[in-house]
Each structure stands twice: as C-alpha cells, then as structure tokens.
C-alpha cells in the first residue's frame, strides 16, 4: 500500500474548456415497454438516440469544438486528443485521428482511443492530467462519448443512450475549474462485457449492483474524500455515474450527499445512460450552473470494473467562458420523439441484406 493514494500532479491542472453533446432523437421508455411487454416501472423517462449520420466520431467532434470554443485556445496548442468509448466506429482505426483532423489539431499530437466500459472518458481525463501535470504538454483534449448498444428486449435497451462530453485539460492558473485531486479504485469484476464480434453486451443482472457499481463508486469516493480530508458538506455538487436514475441517487444517499447536490448533474432520467459520457455530461451540466468557489465531486464507474473520483474547484474564469458554446441543457431541450420502428431503423436493427 502506497502512503498517499491520491493522484495529484506536481504542476496543478484544471479544466480550461468543456463541451457537451446529445443527439436530437428521444425514445420514451414506455415505448420500449410497449413493444416488449415490459411490466412494472421503467428505469428512466426517455433516452437519446443518435441520428443515422451520427457516431462517436461525429459526436466527439461537436463536443470538442464546444470545449475548444470555451477554452479560447488555438486548436494547435493541444498536444493530445484522447477519445474514450465502447462504441468506436471502427474495430481497428482510431476515432481520435478523425476528431483531431476535424478540429484542426494534427499533426503534432498524441492520439488514441480508450476503452473501459463506462469510465473510458474519465480515464482519458486522468491521463491528460498526467500529461499536463508533468509539463510534457500545456493542453490535452479528453473525450468520453458513446452510442451505446442494448439487445432488443433486454433491460439495458431501456437506458443505452448516446451522448458525452469533451474537456480541454491545462494548467490550473488558466483553468475555469481546478482538479484538486483524483483517485481510482479498480478490480477485476465481471459485471458486464461484450465479446469480440458480438453486437450486444451481456450483463450479470443483479451482480451489476453491489459488488460492481456500489462497491467501486463508494470506495473511490470515500477514499478520495478521506485522503483529501473533505466530507459531503464540503461539496456544492456531486455527480455519480448514471446507468439509470436509481443507482446514482442510492449511491449519493449512501455516501451522505443531499438531493440539491446531485440534482443538476442527474441527466439519466431524460437522456438515458450515455456510458463513457454519463458522469462527465453530468459534470458539464453542473459547470453550466455552478458559481466561482463551488466545489464539485464527480465519480465515474466502468464495468469490469473501476471508478474514478475527482474533486473539482470552480474558479472565477468559469463565468467568462460558460456562454461561449451551447450548454448541456440546450442539447437536451432539442428533442424529437421517435417510435420503436424509427428507433429500430436508426440503430441498424433492421437487416437490409
């Protein structure tokens, strides 16, 4: 056991710019229940669905453009473009090079795709903190984005959604929010997976709860707060990975957080589970309304399994940059409801040959 468990770069780092993206289409959970005769309560109100011409590359490009607009830097100042997802468009060929080319960052960069179920986005953020914190680079772009797959009729189909966020990570003195420290808690826990060449993931039903989600989320959060010497009262907002509405609210209550702390970042009820984008789009929605001096706690979770917890302190700069791009709620308000047939077509569930 190492003495100090916190990950804290020697050069302080923070969020220079952030951007969200949610596609336009929504399918209500009741519409999925209608087709599959699902009984009982539905886990969310509705989920977002990507259009026929959207994938993780195109969605990442838009979130990245929003993040760079807020950062106010030239794209060429970025030295890394890292995209975390479990739905990269290609099996082999990086999403990150497409994104980097589109936003004009190439060629003097690191680029790569990350995968860790739902926590690939925060994993990319931690790596970006390392790159900037070690002074190897001044700015790095970390993205978490997904167009999640759910087997027709499976419990996951109600929530598997599309969306995510992008963050320009840079020196703390230029940031709109300082990342005080981060901590990750990881074990080999097989609660959810998708084998090669399979279209849809498998999950361990109730096994996804206690030994996976709750164990990792609570251990990551408690350890970070313990090492930092903070308590839930020190935070104005808290965001937990949101595969549905129930898990994050239960985790928040277990850890001692109150409704007003988690409410602004709880988006699963209206957009569903955006997987690699789920915790971090809660963060962008929270940054959209936070004040200078506010402290935000965010804990992501990825099946397989692990959780990344971050303690974030908002600076005065947030107010100068917030309105330079569309806000998370602007994308959520843009909404076109679709039925199951249209959803099946958009998600490629209708075989044409």
């Amino acid at each position, binding site marked *: 056991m190492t003495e100090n468990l916190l990950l804290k770069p020697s050069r302080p780092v923070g969020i220079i710019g952030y951007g969200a993206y949610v596609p336009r289409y929504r399918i209500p959970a009741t519409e999925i229940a209608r087709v599959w005769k699902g009984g009982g309560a539905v886990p969310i109100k509705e989920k977002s669905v990507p259009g*026929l*011409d959207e*994938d993780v590359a195109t969605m990442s490009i838009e979130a990245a453009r929003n993040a760079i607009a807020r950062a106010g830097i030239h794209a060429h100042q970025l030295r890394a473009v890292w995209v975390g997802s479990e739905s990269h468009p290609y099996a082999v060929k990086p999403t990150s090079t*497409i994104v980097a080319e589109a936003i004009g960052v190439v060629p003097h960069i690191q680029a790569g795709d990350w995968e860790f179920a739902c926590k690939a986005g925060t994993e990319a953020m931690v790596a970006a903190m390392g790159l900037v914190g070690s002074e190897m680079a001044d700015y790095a772009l970390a993205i978490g984005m997904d167009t999640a797959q759910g087997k027709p009729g499976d419990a996951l189909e109600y929530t598997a959604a599309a969306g995510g966020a992008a963050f320009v990570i840079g020196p703390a003195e230029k940031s709109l929010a300082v990342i005080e420290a981060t901590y990750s808690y990881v074990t080999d826990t097989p609660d959810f997976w998708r084998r090669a060449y399979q279209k849809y993931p498998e999950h361990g039903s109730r096994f996804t709860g206690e030994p996976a989600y709750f164990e990792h989320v609570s251990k990551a959060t408690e350890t970070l707060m313990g090492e930092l010497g903070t308590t839930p009262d020190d935070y104005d907002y808290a965001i937990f990975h949101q595969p549905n509405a129930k898990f994050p609210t239960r985790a928040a209550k277990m850890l001692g957080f109150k409704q007003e702390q988690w409410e602004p970042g709880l988006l699963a009820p209206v957009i569903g589970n955006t997987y690699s984008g789920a915790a971090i789009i809660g963060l962008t929605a929270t940054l959209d309304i936070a004040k200078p001096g506010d402290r935000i706690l965010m804990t992501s979770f990825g099946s397989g399994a692990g959780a990344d917890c971050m303690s974030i302190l908002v600076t005065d700069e947030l107010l100068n940059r917030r309105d330079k791009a569309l806000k998370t709620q602007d994308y959520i308000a843009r909404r076109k409801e679709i039925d199951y047939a249209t959803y099946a077509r958009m998600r490629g569930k209708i075989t044409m040959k």
Partner: protein
Amino acid sequence: MEIPRHWRLKKQRYGLIGEVCPHCDSKIFPPRDICPDCGKEAKDEFAFSGAGEVYSYTTIYNAPSGFEHTIPYTVALVQLEEGPLITAQLTDVDEEHVSIGMPVEMVTRKLREDGDERGMLVYGYKFRPKLVVAA
C-alpha cells in the same frame, strides 16, 4: 474504392476549410487556388465559420448509390456567411420545417460508407438548423 480522393478532400470536408484571395479578399469554397472573382492566384487557407442560410432545397427519395440508407433526406444550396454558395445535405431537420432563408450551421457527420460495410467511413460537412439556446 476511392480512398485517395477521400483522403485528399478531408480538410475541406471535415472542417469547411477553403481559401481566401490575398488580392481581393474573396472567400473561396471549395478551394481551387485561383480566385473566381479576380482570376489571380489564391492559396491562403481560410476556415469558414459554418454559418449560413438555405438558398434553395429539395428532398431526395430516390438516392444515388451509397446514400440509400438515409432516404428521405434534404439537400440544400447553402449561402455561407462569407459568400460562397455550396451544396450540402441538411440534417437533424424534418423536411416540412425547411424553408428558404432558414439559418443553418455546419456540423461534421457521416456521409456514407465507401462501398459496403467493409469500406472506410466517409465523414464531411452537413448543415442543420441553427441550434438555439434553451430559455
């Protein structure tokens, strides 16, 4: 397979990168290295803002090869804020809501697969109705 062509056009397609004439300041898209207005050499790169408006439009029900999967879709002549008139697909819009003069903005989307499901993915600009800030 048209990989070299897709690769050659990626800059203008992904990010609406054109040219500006150093002699008469005319903005040029697609890039052609010769200014269509003054006829002089124009090779300076220029990134268009992506803002524009619908000049005219039509809806495609019988699509050319490679675009069958997304029918029906609307194709528009978009007058860019900086001047050029370009042809592009509209996206995230229902046909009945398209009108001449409608403000639009550029987004980078998947255009098609090159060939079949084994081919490369081709990305490029489309335009959507300008997104408004929620009240």
